């Protein structure tokens, strides 16, 4: 099989790598780039643990070929917020009890960020609907939904601004 040379931007840094035609974006991010925040939960697009942003859209990296991100911009959970300053979404997860084991958390952060970028003032129902593809086994979603709503409120009232790399 012929390898492809792909060029893309990963968390703000330009990257150029050779990938197999069947190589998945999840494996490139986790294994080749050592960005292990992106998680495996099913490998077939059913759990949302592997979500990343590609050109601002949330995609499931376990069902995206790495070759398809050629020329595009990828942001993983590591590209959202920083230790000095968590993104308002992350801050809200912290305050509202949105994390337990933390395994769904990167995917949840990626999806919530995407939701608020698209719709800064979602209703609870809209949050629950948008997050349907992201599974959490620990929290019962209560803390997560509260967190997204509270981040939305803070951002739209100007009390917080998104922190992306």
């Amino acid at each position, binding site marked *: 099989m012929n390898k492809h040379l792909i060029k893309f931007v990963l968390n703000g840094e330009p990257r150029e790598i050779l990938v197999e035609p*069947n190589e998945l974006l999840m494996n490139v991010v*986790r*294994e080749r780039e*050592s*960005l*292990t*925040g*992106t*998680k*495996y*939960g*099913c*490998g*077939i697009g*059913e*759990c949302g*643990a592997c979500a990343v942003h590609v050109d601002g859209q949330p995609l499931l990296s376990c069902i995206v070929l790495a070759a398809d991100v050629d020329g595009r911009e990828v942001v*993983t*959970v*590591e590209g*959202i*917020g*920083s*230790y000095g300053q*968590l993104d308002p979404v*992350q801050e809200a*997860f*912290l*305050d509202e*009890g949105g*994390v*337990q*084991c*933390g*395994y*769904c*958390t*990167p995917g949840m*952060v990626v999806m919530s960020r995407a939701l608020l970028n698209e719709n800064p003032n979602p209703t*609870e129902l809209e*949050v*629950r*609907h948008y*997050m*349907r*593809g*992201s*599974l*959490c*086994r*620990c*929290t*019962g*979603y*209560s*803390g*997560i*939904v*509260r967190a997204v709503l509270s981040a939305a409120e803070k951002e739209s009232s100007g009390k917080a601004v998104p922190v992306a790399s």
Partner: protein
Amino acid sequence: MSVQTPQHRYVGERLVRVEDPRLLRGRGQYVDDIDLPGMAHAAFVRSPFPHARINGIDVEAALALDGVFGIFTGKDLNHLAGPLIAGRNDYGGATLGSDLLETKRQLLAADKARHVGDAVAVVVARDRYLAEDACELVHVDWEPLPAVVDANEALSDDSPRVDEALASNNIVHKDFETGDVQAAMDSAPHVFRKRFHHGRCHPAPLEPRGIIADWTTGADRGVTVWISHQMAHLMRTYLSELLQMPEGRLRVIVPDVGGGFGLKAHLFTEDVVIPLVSRALDRPVKWIEDRYENLAASNHAREVFCDIEAAADDDGRLLALRMKFLGDVGAYSPVPYTPWIDVGMAAKSMLGSYDIDNVGYTTDAVLTNKCPTGAYRGVGQTVGQCARESIVDDVARKLDIDPFELRLRNCIGDEPRVNPIGPHHYDGGSYAECLRKARDVLGYDELRERQLELREQGRYIGIGICNFMEHGAWGSKTYRAHGADRPFIDLVRLTVEPGGSVVVATGLTPNGQGHETTFAQLAADALGADLEQVRVVQADTERTPFSMGTRGSRSGVVGSGAILRAAEDLREKMAQIAAHQLEAAVEDIEFGGGKASVRGAPSQALTFREIAQIAYFAPEKQPEDIGEPALVSTRSYDPDPTYGNGTVVAVVEVDVKTGIVKTERIVFVEDCGVVLNPMIVDGQIAGGVAQGIGQSLLEQLAYDVDGQLLSGTLKDFLYPTAGDVPSVEIAHVVTPSPATTSGMKGVAESGIIATPAAVVNAVADALSPFSVEVDHTPITPNDVRALLRAAQASSQAATT
């Protein structure tokens, strides 16, 4: 000498979790995130058949692939370790069924596969893609055999045997009676009967199981294992015995764990296979379970048939309760617990907070050609509550008594008392108060009115109640009471370092419970330290003292007890040093804010750092009678069992056209004694509630009549999503437990223990105008439609 106990500053506070910033930034480290130099990757070849003889395995073609390092079958590995036998050498597992017929499970099935997903070979290769490609090329010569799929049929004499070495498929039978159940039934004005089938479910943590083993040979011979698990030290003990490697040369490290729920409190064959292949290939080997393997071959849980009989008088006073629990436990005994746990805990929890004199049960656990069943959060207790609460509602409906009222009439008092089927004590609670409080929070009377109004419009809402107990804080006494004389030891080491830092080292092995936060809260309060001074180190056998692990809602209670004891030792030493230095009496030294000060003279104080500097480096400033000045103490705590209690009410709406059930509200009133961190406790409850909703309405591990698994993906299994669960309305009642030093009770399982019964009852209540009987979980839309169609057909038949 009496040293002051500091005031609480952190316990009971809603503190944010210290572990969260790293998890939120994707900087957690789970086992699959660990990469070692030269590491190879394993994948397993598994049986596509529920029951099949293995006539041969041809690995030639697979082995020829470039980058495949080795392929191992049962013939290569089974003589090196094993078999795994539940109920034997199981340290703190439990010979809960001591009359158990033993199943001997080989590391890899060599003669016969006994369920879909049973592993028969392992391929180790340069990467996982390649390992999986090679699995496809391993040719197994299968001879399919008739499978045992139905537990009821498995009991008959002419059923095929799942394990030919055993005399019966029924591998454990136990029974119990108190009072005279039959006499009470015979003389009672009303006797109610039903059969309830609790469906197969699965802990299904979002992170599947996974293990890395690195076996080194030569002078530094030893094995290091990273594993996603709930019991680091016990895993080391199991592996030490099976691999014949002294514990001193075995290190088990549990990194971040993406949820456990009991699944990761077992010993699995893969946990032994991976170290062995690491030795054979002389390189580290990683295996991460994929989701299909997780659903097909990691332990399932609690498939139980319950035959229930209840006797009542005209006022709804319950006179007798009898249940028969028949567990469909799959192909092998889970190690260490034995397959009795689900039926046994169902039986032990069938009485709950009800005051009934005549109670009896029988329990049987029957092998079938399905995935083995093991521990899942709320082990068996979910089944017991479902069985009891559903017949209690039948009684209420048929005698036309309000279900809250009926429960209040049959409720025990709040004081500690003997549990008639215990055999240990209830530590007291708020059994009736929780019922009343739940009714208030719900706005019960208005809701009943609304139910009637909606019915007029062809809409069907239902209200279902579960008054529950949660058996927590498992330790020696609990196990002894359940018939397993196994001591439990859980050590916590507390150190004040020379610079004044406090380090809590514990082998309790968290998987999402937030121990880094709660144990720091406990230690800070117990020492009078600042929270920021405290660091919690856990779950690495080389850095922490022994523990039996995190399961059975025990870590909070056990950890707090041991921390309190160790802190008392440290305060005593520190008070001696401070008193000597400040020229005060030891009794007058108080702790708080990271300092020891003289009562009434707060400016006369030493910081922890100043005290520690004296203890470590300045013998001349130490009092003469200090003895060993070391500021370290390792203590253990083995609690009496606790019983949390509470009332859950579910409100559902059933769409009678589609059969879809929507959970509109969950009111959860909970008494778990002293609350350590309300945010964490509420999170544990909400998570358990979602699992409970999943278990009662969605999740299914279906097998067809031939024993083929039909639920191999999450979409087939149906995990609840954010759209399937409401926000939980939680209220607390606090009855401190007299049984534990902290007054806490176990709490982590209540959500899942109690919610399914409430949901089942709510669906039955919603459908009550149609006179249908809801008698199983999960209640899927198809089931609802089938019930309604059957009811319609029989009412049509009756009118024609």
